[in-house]
């Protein structure tokens, strides 16, 4: 090993250490940005070191340079543009898109390596096995993440798409991975095995994600993020590059943990989500026509404003409805009026509120809500009995008390104890159902009033009305 190659590998090691520290700094909002900058800096140095290594080895052709720089510049420009332009509400689909290209790149590396090697038949299982795994995982992630992003963006139907034979296909395709992988390991020079594996994996990504409902997309994205991490680590095995193994597995472990945390927050197993069928979208038919709407108490903006203005403690419960209406700024403004009037305001954030874990926190942060007012479920639940008003904005399933009883779609899911507050106000456009497709018992609770309005419009009205009372 020559000096440059040695130096570059020390640089890679330092970069890997910086990635770990960068992720570690993400454990507090105050240091998180520094962590990300550290990680990005380490990445830039690692990329520069790789360029140095390539220059030093001097085996790259002129066309190779052209391909490397033009591909890099094009990708960087697209990524930069997308990252700058994206609306915060569309963040989950963008993360999914970036995840797709990451997985795609990892798969292409293995394909490239297997195609380029002059004597592929001589490749041992040491390269061909991780290569085959890289292709399978990377390609599944690529097509799966694209479908997930499409579902969140509304390009692909958010409802679970089930077609005849889907279940059978989802058994046959993984079986053919195993066959294809074994074939490729035994005969690394077989083009049929290589292309076949790519095609089957791409198809499986689609058939795996299509039957999963939009509500479960956060879990799917997180899971696919973990997949990409493993694909990158496999690419590291193929290329003999420790940096890729370390960074890839770091991400894979983090994605795995996040996926588990989210599944726990919904009281469901990961397997249950992936097998699908629950996240039926908001078009789910109401099975129970018990005439519940008749018992609902509808109230006006003025009624709500009086309650808010004379409260001493208010807890906001933002949900997907808030995100969809992009009403985070209006909520922040209303909270500010109340805080200025000396009212104790906090936000109860369910772990799966929004479309990604912690997505609601990002939206509220965008609206300049101090993060000290954001409270996680376990911290805020004991506070509800002291709250004069709990204002629910577009959150449905996560506030439904029937989750405490067995025998329904959301049984056992940890919820926000909104019904413990002295008074409850729900801002909602209609009596429509949440993702779980069940009636929310909270709405017929005598303590609860329904303020039927679009979140954005309703909150502006409330702010104006509260302004009248508090002067």
């Amino acid at each position: 090993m020559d000096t440059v190659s040695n130096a570059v590998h020390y640089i890679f090691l330092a970069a890997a250490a910086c990635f770990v520290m960068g992720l570690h700094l993400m454990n507090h909002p105050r240091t998180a940005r520094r962590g990300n900058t550290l990680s990005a800096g380490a990445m830039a140095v690692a990329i520069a070191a790789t360029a140095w290594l390539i220059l030093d080895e001097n085996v790259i052709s002129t066309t190779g340079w052209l391909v490397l720089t033009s591909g890099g510049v094009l990708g960087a420009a697209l990524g930069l543009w997308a990252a700058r332009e994206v609306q915060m509400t569309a963040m989950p689909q963008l993360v999914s898109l970036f995840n797709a290209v990451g997985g795609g790149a990892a798969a292409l590396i293995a394909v490239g390596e297997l195609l380029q090697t002059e004597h592929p038949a001589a490749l041992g299982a040491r390269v061909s096995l991780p290569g085959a795994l890289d292709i399978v995982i990377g390609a599944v992630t690529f097509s799966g993440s694209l479908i997930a992003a499409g579902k969140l963006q509304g390009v692909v139907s958010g409802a679970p798409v089930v077609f005849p034979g889907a279940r059978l296909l989802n058994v046959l395709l993984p079986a053919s991975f195993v066959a294809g992988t074994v074939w490729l390991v035994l005969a690394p020079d077989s083009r049929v095995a290589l292309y076949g594996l790519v095609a089957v994996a791409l198809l499986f990504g689609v058939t795996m994600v299509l039957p999963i409902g939009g509500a479960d997309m956060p879990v799917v994205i997180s899971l696919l993020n973990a997949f990409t991490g493993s694909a990158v680590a496999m690419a590291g095995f193929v290329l003999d590059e420790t940096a890729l193994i370390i960074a890839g597995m770091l991400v894979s472990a983090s994605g795995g943990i996040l996926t588990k945390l989210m599944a726990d927050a919904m009281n469901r197993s990961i397997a249950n989500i992936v097998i699908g069928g629950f996240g039926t979208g908001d078009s789910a038919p109401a099975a129970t026509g018990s005439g519940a709407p008749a018992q609902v108490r509808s109230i006006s903006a003025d009624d709500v404003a009086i309650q808010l203005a004379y409260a001493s403690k208010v807890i906001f419960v933002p949900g997907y409805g808030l995100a969809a209406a992009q009403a985070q700024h209006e909520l922040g403004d209303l909270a500010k009026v109340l805080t200025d009037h000396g009212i104790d305001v906090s936000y109860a954030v369910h772990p799966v509120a929004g479309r990604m874990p912690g997505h609601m926190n990002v939206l509220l942060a965008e609206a300049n809500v101090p993060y000290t007012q954001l409270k996680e479920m376990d911290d805020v639940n004991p506070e509800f009995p002291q709250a004069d008003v709990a204002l629910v904005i577009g959150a449905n399933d996560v506030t439904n008390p029937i989750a405490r009883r067995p025998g329904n779609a959301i049984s056992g899911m940890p919820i926000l104890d909104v019904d413990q507050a002295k008074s409850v106000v729900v801002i909602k456009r209609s009596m429509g159902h949440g993702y779980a497709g069940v009636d929310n018992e909270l709405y017929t609770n005598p303590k609860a009033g329904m303020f039927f309005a679009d979140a954005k419009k309703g909150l502006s009205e409330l702010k104006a009305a509260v302004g009248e009372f508090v002067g």
Partner: protein
Amino acid sequence: MNNLDLLTAITVFVLSVLVGIEVISKVPATLHTPLMSGSNSVHGIVVIGAMLIAAESHTWLGYVLAFVAMAFGAMNVVGGYVVTDRMLEMFKAKPAAEKNQSAEQNQKAGV
């Protein structure tokens, strides 16, 4: 390239998983979206692999593969870090930013 022996590679693999679990389990739910996006940009290190593949390419098929891998990897890494930074910027302590932001919002609202 150096020839990493299999045992070393697997050791690195296992230790990285453990470090990942240890580091991530301490992150509060508030930061889970930036965390996901941030870890997403870390696997953008795949761009290094794409560069090595581009350097080895000598056939037109190889060049096409390398080009797409480069574009994908670069998009992952640049976009990932920039968008994570944008999110985290909003989480920083407010006092200085608050005035500007609310003035801007008032302007938008026509106040």
